[in-house]
């Protein structure tokens, strides 16, 4: 599997170097920054975190809101204990995109906040780190409600 992927990477590099015109290489060049091994680790870890969620859904009859709370709280605890960052180093977006990553981000922000601003940082650090995601969700939610209506499930 590893060999195949490395070969893929080589082929992929050759492809851009040998067959593409210079202008396209500049446009497509951003894809060269993708590390395929990193992508594979991200896929597997991200997928496995979702599988944990699926087992919880199927085995415990927890509602979606409770599943999300469990993940975000677990992420914050693991982040606070300094464990989650190893998973982030290993899997990249595979660890940051699931909601455990959101929780980790909040906890990490709180710690950074304490380092920088002391007591005030406890309250400002977490949300500051997650501000982009929260604001985007609120804003896009509002926009979606303006232009779209719910439809019957099929």
């Amino acid at each position, binding site marked *: 599997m590893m060999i195949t992927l490395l070969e893929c990477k080589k082929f992929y590099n050759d492809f851009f170097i040998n067959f593409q015109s210079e202008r396209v290489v500049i446009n497509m060049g951003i894809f060269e920054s993708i590390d395929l091994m990193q992508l594979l680790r991200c896929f597997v870890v991200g997928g496995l*975190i*979702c599988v944990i*969620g699926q087992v919880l859904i199927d085995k415990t009859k927890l509602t979606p809101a409770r599943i999300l709370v469990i993940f975000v*709280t677990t992420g914050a605890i693991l982040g606070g204990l300094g464990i989650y960052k190893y998973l982030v180093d290993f899997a990249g977006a595979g660890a940051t995109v699931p909601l455990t990553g959101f929780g980790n981000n909040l906890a990490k922000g*709180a710690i950074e906040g304490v380092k920088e*601003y002391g007591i005030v940082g406890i309250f400002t650090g977490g949300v500051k780190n997650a501000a*982009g995601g929260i604001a985007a*969700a609120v804003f896009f939610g*509002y926009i979606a409600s303006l232009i779209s209506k719910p439809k019957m499930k099929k």
Partner: protein
Amino acid sequence: MGSNPLDTKKDYQNYVDQKSPNSPILKNCFNAFWVGGLICSIGQIIMDICASKGLDTQISGTIVSIILIGISAFLTGLNIFNKIGKFAGAGSLVPITGFANSIVSPAMEYKSEGYVMGVGGKMFTVAGPVLVFGISASIIVGFIYLIFNTQTVPLV
């Protein structure tokens, strides 16, 4: 089954569990795995692109969140996300896409009760707990860090 399942509530619950079909857990896990992995991989690709542009990890992570949230809000608005969710289960729920969907879907549903108390008031009916527990947990983490860390930190 020797005794009557209606003897006690516990007997009946056990009997009902036996009678109820289980979720197709292997199929569900497989779908959750590859869809969840795919969503994270999209995040990774965006992250790598940001990194190649010289952005730091924190900003890259925020950009990934905003883009994925934008995509899932868009798909929710097009009445597509619930179909993905039905197929993928936790695969689309557990990534940040599920958080976005759980904010956008009540916003759309309660639009009929007006923009202020409907959209504005009910937007967090599903995702509110995530923020409450996530933020509270982060504050507790920060507080514990303040007490137990060995380096000096500013107190105000």
